[in-house]
């Protein structure tokens, strides 16, 4: 039986708050955590100790997520590390191209998933556990009302495309013009 204590997870994100948040979730669940604030640091960390799982942001100054993946695949063993893309930019101009490239091609040999920011602690943890073959914690059911609303808002925000937002903007402007 695999235990979280046996697994090391690398968190790559340029936002210190996000690193603090995700490493908090994983540490509390018992995992070993490494952190890096861009692709270069992440590569350094992988060289020092091969992680069992990588949570990766796409848009970062310095070396971006996709460029880090292209470096990683050069090593056949590293190429099999499960990757979870966690980004706010899966559908916008900033990250869309990279995102599509990663998911439409076979850059990496290992499992590949993604989560959209913002993300609840439960979803984040369950995703990591699932890919690592650990039983999911039954916490989704215990979600309270604010949690559900929050998750709802994030889903909606994530789904909104520019055309929809433009329509909303126009509607708001019309409202303003009328008042």
């Amino acid at each position, binding site marked *: 039986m695999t235990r979280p204590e046996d697994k090391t997870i690398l968190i790559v994100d340029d936002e210190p708050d996000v690193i603090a*948040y995700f490493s908090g979730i994983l540490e509390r669940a018992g995992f070993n955590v490494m952190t890096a604030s861009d692709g270069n640091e992440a590569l350094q960390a992988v060289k020092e100790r091969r992680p069992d799982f990588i949570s990766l942001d796409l*848009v970062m100054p310095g070396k971006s997520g996709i460029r880090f993946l292209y470096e990683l695949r050069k090593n056949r063993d590293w190429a099999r590390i499960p990757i979870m893309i966690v980004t706010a930019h899966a559908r*916008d*101009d900033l990250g869309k191209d990279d995102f599509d490239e990663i998911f439409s091609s076979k850059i990496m040999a290992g499992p590949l998933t993604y989560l959209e920011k*913002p*993300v609840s602690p439960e979803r984040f943890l369950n995703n990591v556990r699932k890919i690592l073959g650990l039983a999911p914690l039954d916490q989704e059911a215990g979600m309270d009302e604010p949690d559900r609303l929050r998750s709802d808002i994030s889903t909606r925000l994530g789904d909104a495309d520019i055309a929809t937002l433009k329509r909303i903007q126009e509607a708001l402007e019309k409202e303003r013009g009328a008042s």
Partner: protein
Amino acid sequence: MIDSWIQSHLFEEVPQILGVLDREYRIVKANRRLASVFGEWENRRCYDVLRGCSTRCEGCEAARVFADGRSRTTTEVWVDKAGRHGHYVVHCVPVPGEEGRVAYVLTMATDVTQSKHLEREHQILFERVPCYVAVLDRRLRIVRTNELLRTTFGDQVGKLCHEAYKNTDERCPGCPALRSLEDGGVHSARSVARRKDGQQASYVVTTAPLARKGEPIEYIIEILHDVTDVEVLEAALERERQFLASTIDQSFDAIVATDAERRITVLNPAAEALLGVTADEMRGSTELERVYPAEFLAVLGDGGSSSILRETTIRAGNVEIPVRFAGVVVRRGDRTLGTAGFLQDLRDVKRLEREKLDAERLAAVGQTVAGLAHGVKNILTGLEGGMFLVRWGIEEDRRDKLQQGWEMLDRNFHKITTFVREFLSFAKGREAKVAPTDPNALVKDVVALFEEAAREKGVVISSELQEGIRAANLDADGIHRCLANLISNAIDACLVSDRDGGRVVVRTRDRRGCLEFEVEDNGCGMDAEITRKVFTSFFTTKGTAGTGLGLLVTKKTVTEHGGNVDIESTPGVGSTVRLLFPRHRLPALTAHGDRPKQGGREQ
């Protein structure tokens, strides 16, 4: 009395040359006139005296008179005592002797050399004149032709005129020869004739009676002039004219032209549609202000020769229509032939331009809103993280997690406050107040604002402003904020850079109808990937220090001015950001008397 004068004087006084020959052809008597022309004659033979011959002439008229006793008239060529040939009309009369025989012949000669010369010259003229000449009788039968006519049409003497030239039995309609016969006047007509080589050619036929006024007309002279070449030219000219006319008619551009007296001669259908007039009502009119813009009329008034107006207006009824105009005074040498103007309706172009600007603005708004949504996502993630840590701290009584979570919440609440404030001012930026603004003064203002603070941080700001830049319609506050944002970014880039001696230069430029603001730094620079993303959406590389709204607002403000943002950047070398405003796309002035909306602008 009279009889005795005749007997004694007539022989000498008649204005003719008189000589009497005997049957041996000796001149036995002659008057002084003969002696003065031909010299000595006594006892010499006539052929010796008159022709310088030693034998009798062949076909001698005198011999015939001696033979049958009848009078004869003939023409002779004689040689005078100086050896000159002369033409003479000679009258030979028998003088009877005894036994009824002709004893003598009286020869009376008149010198016609002068008239012979004239006749010959007429003959040459008739033959050699460089046009086709024929003489017709009253029945239109050709009685005589000249050399050129014979060469071209062959010898047609004896044929009827229409037979000869057209090979037809019928007279030509409107035959000028018949008209000349009828009224004795000169007439002409166009005709096509067939030459002897089978070719058809066009001629102008002119006819005139060969008789003096009042005399009965027996003959008609007919002169043909070849006009085939002229007709070919006329046809080419007509084709040219047709081509031009249909080009003008079919043109999408309105075309108007006048003659030298500035009367309207051409107004094509496109011009009718544009100006709301008809060609019929305008033709001949001198109201050029109805078809030419005022600028071109001024050029015409000053004696100028052309004007090209990229954008002007023409008044059609009560409407001002935007047009592009090209006008020219058509000259040949020193002579003015007229004027021509080409008007292109710019209404559609203007509408498209407006729609394009609107679309660009809307796209900028859309991008901005999308960017804002993502900004909210990041802050939400921070809040989510803070709450998780706080909950963890409470549940497991871990003060460190509580502390960390609380700080994260605090930071993100602060961030969302800043964000909302910036967003509000950004939203208010839509109430742009556009006024004529001096771009250089604007830059001086912004630079002065940053100079001191930058110097303290070791960054030098300078400005290089092009002199004499015209005022432009700008939302001064909006552009001020853009420049402040760019300069602030440039200073930050210098501070992040490893090098000392940070430098920021702000420039203005006005070239090719485009107003430019430029902010250049020698800071850290950005790689191509980041440069590409800088404006596309909500983006910050300053971590928690920036909201990422600055450049987004700049982009939006510039787009609303119809402008563009351009970035060049090299990592480790520096960045140059340019705000480009094509002047013809700048917004109209905010209408006078517009009151700012309630609440006003922050700061």
